[in-house]
């Protein structure tokens, strides 16, 4: 690990000013991803600006019935918050499905959105990776890509975004707010992550030096009827190989509103808009759910090792929507 300077920011303008235009500086939140990547030599910042003490650690209801979540709210506090659990149960479930109790106590909402892929080529500086060293190549395409992307990827990168939280946030139209030296700004989560294309190293649309200050969730009555389901290669403490956040409002056998987002299928949490369009106004039955999933997955381009993700996501959609339809957010048990 390279030597670095360390400063603790006490207010948002101060943090933004200190980081300023220094491309070698990084904000330090919980450190669960950044410190790990620094040890691996993937990140080599010259300075860290610690933002954990910033007054951004509140979860507050908004006037319209949504929630405003501060950037330094820990994953644990977010998942434990009664209003999160009541209004967006899938969000609480998604957070709880990620990492471990220890890591959730450290990790922050802002950091979660900015975490880097766990693609094993990205985290190994002994191997090429377009995301880490632009132009060096993507060995995952010909190599190990069982947990690679099936949607929105390119020949330059097939890495998936590792966040569980982000999948639920995507389903619920989260808006990311940030601060720069020039003032505040906001980005819908749908616009927050950039397409992979031939620039997989450019991950977000945040301006240089921007500090995420929070995430706003608009009111969404359907979100109270939501669940998150994650599949991984062991029962806990592992990244997803596929996950789905779903919300469903059915009246008289007709889908009035629905939300769907997929995890571990793309370089970003994947909002399944085509599937939602297919669902809304149609019948609430397994065939319709499967057809909706197929509408989204029609664009899937799996590689040789990850064809399983297509039936996996399809089955998860059907299972989760069926569960919501029959049992609501309390689950099947």
């Amino acid at each position, binding site marked *: *690990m*390279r*030597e670095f300077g360390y400063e603790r920011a006490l207010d948002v303008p101060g943090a933004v000013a200190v980081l300023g235009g220094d491309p070698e500086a990084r904000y330090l939140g919980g450190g669960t991803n950044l410190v790990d990547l620094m040890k691996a*030599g993937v990140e080599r910042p010259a300075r860290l600006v610690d933002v954990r003490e910033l007054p951004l650690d509140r979860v507050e209801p908004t006037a319209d019935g949504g929630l405003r979540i501060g950037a330094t709210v820990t994953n644990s506090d977010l998942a434990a918050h009664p209003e999160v659990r009541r209004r967006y149960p899938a969000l609480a479930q998604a957070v709880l499905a990620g990492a471990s109790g220890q890591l959730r106590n450290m990790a922050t909402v802002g950091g979660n959105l900015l975490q880097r892929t*766990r693609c*094993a*080529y990205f*985290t*190994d500086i*002994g*191997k090429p990776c377009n995301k880490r060293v632009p132009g060096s190549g993507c*060995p995952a395409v*010909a*190599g*190990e890509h*069982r947990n690679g992307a099936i949607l929105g990827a390119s020949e330059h990168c097939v890495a998936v975004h590792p966040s569980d939280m982000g999948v639920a946030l995507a389903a619920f139209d989260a808006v990311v707010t940030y601060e720069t030296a020039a003032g505040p700004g906001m980005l819908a989560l749908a616009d927050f992550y950039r397409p992979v294309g031939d620039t997989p190293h450019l991950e977000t649309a945040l301006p240089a030096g921007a500090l995420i200050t929070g995430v706003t969730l608009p009111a969404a009555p359907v979100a109270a009827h939501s669940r998150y389901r994650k*599949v991984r*290669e*062991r*029962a*806990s*403490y*592992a*990244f997803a*190989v*596929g996950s789905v956040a779903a919300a469903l409002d059915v009246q008289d056998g007709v889908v009035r509103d629905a939300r769907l987002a997929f995890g571990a299928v793309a370089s970003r949490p994947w909002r399944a808009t085509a599937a939602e369009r297919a669902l809304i106004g149609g019948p609430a039955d397994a065939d319709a759910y499967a057809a909706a999933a197929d509408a989204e997955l029609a664009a899937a381009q799996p590689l040789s*090792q*990850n*064809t*399983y993700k297509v*039936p*996996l996501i399809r*089955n*998860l959609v*059907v*299972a989760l929507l069926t569960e919501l339809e029959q049992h609501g957010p309390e689950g*099947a048990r």
Partner: protein
Amino acid sequence: MTTTAKPDAVGVARTRIEGRDKVTGAARYASEIPFTELAHGWLVLSTIARGRIRAIDDAAVRALPGVLTVLHHGNAPRIKDDVIGALGRPDPIVEVFQHDRVPHAGWPVALVVAGTSEQAREAAEALVVTYDEEPHDVSFDADKEGAYVPQDAETVKGDVEAELAASTVVLDAAYTTPEQHHSAMEPHAVTVRWDGGRLEVFDSNQGSKWVADDLANLFSLDLSAVRVRSEHVGGAFGSKGLRSHHVAAVMAATELQRPVRIALTRRQVFAITGYRSPTAQRVRLGADADGRLRAFAHENRSMTSTLREFVEGSAGFGRTMYDSVAHHSVDRVVPADVGTPTWMRAPGEAPGSFAVESAMDELAEKLGMDPIALRVRNEPTAGPISGLPFSSRNLLACFEEGARRFGWADRDPRPRVRREGNRLIGTGVAACTFPSGAAPSTASVTAEPDGTFTVRITAADVGTGARTALTVLAADALDTAPERVHVRIADSDFGAAWVAGGSMGTRSWGWAVMAAARDLREQLTLRGTEIPAAGVTVTTNTAELIAQLAQKERYAFGAQFAEVAVDVTTGEVRVTRLLGVFAAGRIVNPLTARSQLVGGMTWGLSMALHEEAVRDETFGSHVGADFAGYHFAANADVPVIEADWVPDEDPDDPVGIKGVGEIGIVGTAAAIANAVWHATGSRQRHLPIRPDRVLLAEADRAGHDA
């Protein structure tokens, strides 16, 4: 010395002697003993998979803050390269910095030593090494060319092909197991210093005398000039013998004349401390309609390095397990440009039992026979190959007791008939066995003037409970209370002893301790009651006693039962119940023995569902060599696991202990895979049984049904 009757300590559940130290953090492991002037070493591993080092530019790194020295092939002292130790020639990876060749990815090319670990790490990462790369090949599969049959790796009885042809039912199936890593929670670490002309080594190993002698021989030192201690060991499982960091640390401590510590990173542990080879196995079974085996054929193939032959001897499993008219079993190895594999918990038996016990289940299905009944039908009365009698063989008692407790009689043998919601439920069974050996060991027992006893033996407690087991064995042999016995272990100065391996530790060390205790009692009887201030010490070696042991087939046996729930829509397999019933000789401490057996079964579960190291053939190195990439079971994967045992006595055996460290993993993965078949109707012949494999099997079924 009193002769009043005292209740036996052996057989009574007893908490670990060092338990309090372990739960309070007081127990110190290899890298936790403080030294003044301690320097930190950091290994630099090759980034290429084969070739030669062109240059190592250490000048810039030597100028970095805190850097004390940089060792590499250009400046390191020469060491011997023909050492044959207690367990054979050490893996040539220990002969560090002796030449410019790079035989595989992760080969140690340099050691950077600095005042702090942060400085050492940054300097090691800054060291520029240039290479002349050569083509490499790390591939492994059933058809790869270059495989050969090592010495004593093939057993033939009768004509397998003829018996297969004469069989009513034939099963021919191929199975694979992937590369697996020990992943002890404590990464390998060593601290070395010179003290008064002696090399002092604080280590994490499975045999301190073994490591000490190998080190002495490598550096051409008197055996008495090296002392290795390994008081607490944070897991080993076969991986903790002499490795390259020991040798590098001795070189650095010698040059700098100050204490040097090397603690490997987790990634380095993956790269340079050994692993279990992948296997590709083919099993062919031929049986009469009543299930009697006419032919048993098991061909196994594993990988080794270009440096040293290591055989993952999976084909040995059937040689004692089942009777058949004809038998052919063979291990083949194929070299590749990889690190040398090594022993890992139940080497051979773990992968071998997966193939054979899966095949037996498939044969039972073909025969329309209960899988336990098939095993009963083929139970031998003597060694199927050797013809020797078994010292004891209580496999059928294990099946009987296990079946009763598991409720096997109520099982519907048809696959894919039990459903609970989205999950299909199935049960499976497998047999297991592991050899029960003993190796010569030295123990000394001292009668102290205060009425207590001190036992000294170079045993290692790698989590097995050896320290506690030896205490109660000594107490009974001395006819005293365990509280009056102090067992000191893991110090090479205590003499030669077997290592913590092969499920032979407690048997071998216990034998030596009991023999020394018996000799001490005799001495004390002759001397009377007066104990001098220095105490009375008796030292005994068991070489002669072991040589007198009658030739028999000595094995532990067991029956493994598994229940699984498979969500065929997501591919998730959850083990919902495991029961193992074992016949493993005399159980010294039921509390820790059960932990060993349950731990082994947990490994079996983990092997069945999770573990798999992946190499990228282009780069020749691992992909995801960490605990996020290499999964072993987490708490949430592990259900209630029951382990128990049936009486298994051998009156002719002077110790009666068979060892419980490894048999728990044997057969478990097969029982789980058999349960997955029972749940889903699809055979899983390739480990681990990942969600994608279950989903693809479902897609295949749908394809066939359509």
